[in-house]
C-alpha cells in the first residue's frame, strides 16, 4: 500500500517536473476495475487524434504502448503467438469520436471504422485482452451522428469505460455502465489521463 503511495507520489513529481501538471482531479476508481497491464494497443474508431493523445500520455508515464490508427483484428492476432493466447495480459484501448478530415484522409468511413473496431475487439477478447473504450476528447467529439455511431457501437463492448465528464450531460455513459455493470472512470480533461494511468495500470513491481 505504502509502495503504491510512493509510486503515485513519484509519478506526480515527474509530471510536475515536466511542467505538465493537470488541474487537480479526484478520480473515482471503481471497485470492479479489471487488472490492467501493458502492453497497450491503442487505436481510434473514427480517426480522431484521441488515440494519439492517449499514446502520447502513456509514453509520458512510461507505459509500453503501440499506436496503430487502423489496427485490424488480423494484425492484432499476429502480434500474439498462438501458444500464448489466453495468457496475453495486454490491453486494447479504443478511442471514440470521429474526425471527418481523419476518416477522409485514411479512406475510411464511419461504417467501416465501426466494423473494423468491432472485429478488433472480438479478436482482443479471444486473446484475453482487456478492452478500454475511451471518449477522451470531450464535447467537440460528440457533435454529430458519426460521433454518436462510434460511441454507441464501441462503448457497450468495453471492460472499462474512460469518459470525459462533459460528454455525459445526457447521462448516456452512466446509464450504460449501470445497465451492463461496467466499471467507469470520468475525467475532466484529456490531460488527466497522465495522472490516471499510473493509478490504474499494474506495473511489474506492484
Amino acid at each position, binding site marked *: 500500500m505504502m509502495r503504491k503511495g510512493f509510486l503515485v507520489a513519484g509519478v506526480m513529481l515527474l509530471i510536475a517536473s515536466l511542467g505538465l501538471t493537470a*488541474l487537480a482531479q479526484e478520480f473515482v476508481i471503481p471497485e470492479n476495475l479489471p487488472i490492467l497491464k501493458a502492453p497497450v494497443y491503442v487505436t481510434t474508431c473514427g480517426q480522431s487524434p484521441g488515440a494519439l*493523445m492517449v499514446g502520447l500520455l502513456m509514453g509520458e508515464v512510461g507505459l509500453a504502448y503501440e499506436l496503430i490508427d487502423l489496427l485490424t483484428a488480423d494484425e492484432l492476432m499476429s502480434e500474439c503467438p498462438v501458444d500464448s493466447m489466453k495468457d496475453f495480459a495486454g490491453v486494447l484501448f479504443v478511442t471514440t469520436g470521429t*474526425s471527418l*478530415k481523419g476518416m*477522409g*484522409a485514411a479512406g475510411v468511413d464511419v461504417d467501416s471504422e465501426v466494423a473494423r473496431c468491432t472485429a478488433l475487439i472480438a479478436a482482443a477478447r479471444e486473446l484475453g485482452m482487456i478492452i478500454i473504450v475511451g471518449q477522451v476528447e470531450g464535447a467537440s467529439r460528440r457533435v454529430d451522428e458519426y460521433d454518436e455511431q462510434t460511441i454507441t457501437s464501441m462503448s457497450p463492448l468495453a471492460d472499462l469505460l474512460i469518459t470525459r465528464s462533459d460528454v455525459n450531460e445526457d447521462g448516456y455513459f452512466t446509464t450504460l455502465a449501470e445497465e451492463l455493470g461496467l466499471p467507469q472512470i470520468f475525467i475532466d*480533461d484529456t*490531460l488527466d489521463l497522465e495522472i490516471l494511468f499510473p493509478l490504474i495500470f499494474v506495473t511489474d513491481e506492484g
Partner: protein
Amino acid sequence: MKANREWIIKGIALAVWIGILISSGIAFAQHRQYKETVVLGEGVTQVKTLGDYFEPIKGTTNDCNIYILDSGVPGGTLLIMAAVHAEEPATNLAAQLIVENAGVTTGRVLVAIHENRSASTVTRPGDAYPQFYTVKTEWGEKKFRMGDRWANPLDSWPDPETYVHYPSGQMLAYMDTRNMNRTWPGRANGSLAEQTSYAFMRLIEQENVSLTIDLHEAELEYPIIGTIVAHQGALNVAAMASMMLTAQEFPIGMEISPLALHGLSHREIGDYSNSPCILLESPEPFLDRVRGVTDEALLLTGKDEFVMKAGEKGLLYWPIDENGWSIDIRVARHVRTVEKLTELWTRFHADTAMVFSGLPSYEEMVDNGVGHYFTDPATVSANRLAFE
C-alpha cells in the same frame, strides 16, 4: 416635350451612375492604398520583405514585410504567418501584437503580418463587408484594413476555368488560384498566390525555419474550428498543446493534416521543406452564412442572434452564447497557442529551441483588450515604424 423629359431622366440616371462609380471608386482606392502602421517592438531586430527571398515578388502587392526577432542565442526559427485569408482579422491583430510586444530569448521568430497582402486590399462588397475596422487603444483608435479570402482580382486576373493545384494535379474551384491556402508549395511562374507561396517556401529554406504556424479563423458552421491542425512532423507538439491549453486555459481541439488534401499550408509546407506546419483556427461568427447584419460590430464582438439560433438548432460545430466571440478572446487564443506550441516544440526539440518573453497572458489580453498592447506610433521614432 415627352422626348425632352426622357432625356432629362436619362441624364439624371447617368449622373447618379457616374456619381456612384466615382464615390465607390474613391472608396475602393482609399481602402487599397491605406497603410496600417506597425510599431516595431524592442524584440524586432530587422525587417526584410518577401521579395528578398524570391526576386519576382519584389515590389509587387505581395512583397510583404518579414519581421525578424532574433535573440542572438542559437536555437530554432519559428515562422508565424497571418492574414492569408484577410477576412480573418484576429490573425492580423495577433501577429501585430506579437511584433509589438514579444521578446525572444532563444532562437529566432519571423512574422508575416499580411501573408497574402493582395487579399487585404479588397473586401466582399456583395456580402456587405466593412472596408475597415478600428480597435480602441488608450491613445485613440487604431485602424486596420478588412480583406477577403482571395487575392484581389486587380492583382491576379483572369482566373482559370478550373484551378489545378501544382504539383498534385488536384482540381479545385477556379477562384482558389487566388486562395493562398490552396496554392502551397507554390510555383515560380504561377498565379500571384502561387508565386507568393513559392516565395515563402524559399524563405523557409533560406532561413532554415524549424516550425511554421499559420493563423486562421473559421465560421462556426465549419467542422474544423477552435482547433489546431498539425502536419505529421508536429503531432506530439500539437496534441500536447491541445491537451494542456484545454485543461488549463481554454478549449482547443486538434486535427491531423490529411495526407491527400493538397494545397494547404499544414500539408505542403511540411512535405516540401524541413519545417512542419501547424494551422490554428479561432471562431469568427462574422463568417457564418446565417449571420445577421454584417458590420464592424459583428466583426469585433462576434455577437449574432442568428448564429446563436443556429447553435440552438444544433447546426454549429462550436458553441456560442450572448457573449459572442470577441476579437480580444480570438486574438488571445492565437497568441497563447503560438506561445504554448513554441514552448512544447522546445521541450520535444531541444536542439532547435525557441523561447518567447514579454507576451501577455490569456487573461491579461482578454481583460485589457487587444488595443491595450498597441503603442501610439506618434511616440516612437520613424525608424521604429513599419507599414502594412
